């Protein structure tokens, strides 16, 4: 059985989620120990447990050790079954992280799936729904399957209560993806969401984005949401090139000024635009696993993070991949 030391690399929940997805896709059982061993509260937390349960549900897996606080888990996958699923996540845990766990196996499952997930949709430390919709899923679709993601309701931290509905029309085999360059700029957009927070917060954020990126007002959108979804504030900046769309995000929180929130998102965007790479670090993390499943691929990125390296290590436990990473100034080429 595949044994994974959960304290290796960045040592967080990501190792677990990737292992679950890979286990389902490759039909290989695994045991993970030292789960989040170096964190202040070690072991499985509720949001990880939800991911384990969701993975077990779609893959008819037998699981040992699926409890809050458990530092060891054994997961034996059965057959991945397409279908209608409904998952609810507590503590405003991210819908997108659960989706990340179960989407890869559904991409090549036998039949269409419809997955409804409730929880947080715009959380710190998780890819926001906008990122999946605009940046990640279009690339997945280029690999063969059709995936739609509908954001039914926003769910901000700490209250959650958001909802997404994802439909997957699978493909029998994922095609290789190659994004060596991003191409010419074709679209740009900034959206400032506010719920239960004064509208001027959104306007101030967009002013900063407009000034820092020298963008005209017609690409800056205030998105007012019903107050009872709040309190919540998120700023997303999307830049589309011929080959790829990238999305950069920042979240408002009490005690952090609108200007500071906007500066953070705009600075990420500036850095990306200034370089020539196709994908930013977050998108690079997300692409590794589907690319490995498709048997190869290539992309250029701005930097290789520790997070990315951990992902490579976990993926190698299930699949024989030997990524090569070639630096070429601010553009790094990753080949699988």
């Amino acid at each position, binding site marked *: 059985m595949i044994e994974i030391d959960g304290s290796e690399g960045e040592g967080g929940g990501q190792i677990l989620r990737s292992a679950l997805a890979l286990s389902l896709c490759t039909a290989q059982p695994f045991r993970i120990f030292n789960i989040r061993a170096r964190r202040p509260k070690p072991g499985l937390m*509720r949001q990880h*447990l939800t991911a384990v349960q969701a993975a077990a549900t779609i893959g008819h897996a037998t699981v040992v050790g699926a409890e*809050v606080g458990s530092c060891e888990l054994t997961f034996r996958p059965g057959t991945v079954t397409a279908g209608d699923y409904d998952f609810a996540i*507590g503590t405003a845990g991210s819908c997108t992280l659960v989706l990340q766990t179960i989407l890869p196996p559904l991409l090549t499952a036998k039949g269409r799936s419809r997955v409804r997930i409730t929880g947080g949709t715009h959380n710190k430390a998780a890819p926001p729904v906008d990122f999946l919709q605009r940046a990640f899923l279009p690339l997945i679709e280029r690999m063969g399957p059709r995936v739609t993601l509908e954001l039914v309701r926003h769910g901000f931290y*700490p*209250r959650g*209560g958001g909802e997404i509905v994802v439909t997957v029309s699978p493909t029998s085999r994922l095609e290789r993806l190659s994004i060596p360059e991003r191409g010419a700029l074709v679209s740009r957009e900034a959206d400032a969401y506010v719920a239960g927070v004064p509208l001027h917060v959104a306007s101030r954020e967009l002013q900063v984005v407009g000034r820092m990126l020298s963008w005209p007002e017609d690409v800056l959108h205030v998105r007012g949401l019903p*107050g009872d*979804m709040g*309190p919540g504030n998120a700023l997303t900046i999307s830049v589309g090139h011929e080959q790829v769309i990238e999305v950069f995000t920042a979240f408002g929180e009490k005690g952090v000024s609108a200007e500071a929130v906007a500066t953070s998102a705009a600075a990420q965007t500036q850095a990306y635009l200034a370089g020539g790479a196709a994908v930013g670090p977050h998108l690079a993390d997300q692409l590794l696993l589907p690319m490995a499943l498709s048997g190869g691929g290539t992309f250029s990125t701005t930097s290789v993070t520790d997070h990315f390296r951990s992902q490579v290590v976990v993926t190698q436990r299930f699949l024989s991949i030997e990524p090569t990473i070639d630096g070429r100034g601010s553009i790094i080429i990753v080949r699988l």
Partner: protein
Amino acid sequence: MKNVVIGFLGSSLDAGGGPGRWEKWRPTVSLCQHEDLLIDRLELLYARPHQRLAEQLVEDIATVSPETTVNLHLVDPRDPWDFQEVYGALHDYARGYKFDVERERYLMHITTGTHVAQICMFLLTETRYFPASLLQSAPPRRQRAGSIGSYAVIDLDVSKYDQLAARFAREQADSTAFLKSGIATRNAAFNRTIDAIERVAIRSRSPLLLVGPTGAGKSQLASRIYDLKKLRHQVAGEFVEVNCATLRGDAAMSTLFGHVKGAFTGAQTERAGLLKKAHGGMVFLDEIGELGPDEQAMLLRAIEEKRFFPMGSDKETQSDFQLIAGTNRDLRADARAGRFREDLLARINHWTFRLPALRDRLEDIEPNVDYELEKHTRESSTTVRFNAEARRAFLKFATSGVAEWTGNFRELSAAITRMATLADGGRITEDLVAEEISRLSEQWATTHPDELNEVLSDDALAGIDLFDRVQLREVVKVCRRARSMAEAGRTLFGVSRGHRAKVNDSDRLRKYLARFQLDWETVNANRDRIGNQFVTRS
């Protein structure tokens, strides 16, 4: 194991409308937001005025914790600050709840609800009506969105907490040391006895029976037990000590139970009695086997019903005291022989502790010598020490088989006191030790348990028939207890003197003693000498 939380809705802490409520710490909601605490079910108790709030909490918890089933329970004491009502309501709730401790772990959330409710929940949890641990939640240091504060689970079984257990062990060590007057005794059997006494003394108000020879420290221990309970605020009243062997006749009844004016000849004023004096406190009855049958009967009633009749009174008086009894006798044998009431014995030997004689605790002589020296230093404000050689010599003698220590620790204490008193310049020399050794040896050579050995030489005794010895021993006993020859005569010839025209008890007694070459003075001389020893010893 499923987690089930039972708690009151916090009418102000949990309140809050609008999006702003998510930026505020709400104990009941926040509890359901902890990443490391999955609550499978929440039993939320609320009062009628807070119905709306309760419904909102159900909704909010469903959002942040879809894993949690929330059950609302209307618990509606008319006055949420009335202890009796709240306790009653919660007690009913607990009695009606189907606890499944095999599958569910219960947590009583005591952060919300009135203080009265918190106290009631604590009491009902402690008494296991709620088979639960306590769950306490606390706000974050700074209130902001997503700061859900912290929580702590408190299991009321304190033995599970290492530090607390260590603290109790330390406290117990302190109190056993206290019972031993700080003497670091080494005798394992004695130390075990003291440990047991400590545990019983702290927890029980039942009578204690201390069995051991004279001078083994019964009286000292009884008074230390009282002091310990006083320190722990377990007794409020006084400590009263009485030696039953000194109680005789009317005086015995009156001393213990009191009398009313005119109850007997000489009862010119009312007297409360020692047992009354010890109300709320403790009575040490030493040599309880010497108590007369009437006193035994009255004592039994006093222990069992905490009520008794003072002499001459038809009105009962009340006194609630804890009894410590001391004895050197085999009370079981006394009970079989009809000298001691079976029922009283059954009542007082609930907790029986045996104090060994000094002879059986030779390893404790050294720490006791040190203790006695310190005590002398404290009481006389002059430091007294042994010379190294003198100390070695005394300890060698004291722990040798030669030393009989018939008077036990009281005798050891007296020996040290004598040497300390005679020590010039605070030094006990080898000469002083030698002197004391010969003094002790002489005492042990002459003090024998048989009264006849004290009044007759071995040669003389050898010439007396066993038949006569039996009678003579009893006669000598009576003489030594009496104040005068006439009194002894009256006791000895109490029946026959009534049939005589001429009463001359003293003469009859004198003639009887003369048959064994004895007289009143010889018998009394011995008694005095023994009496003097006791004076110097104490």
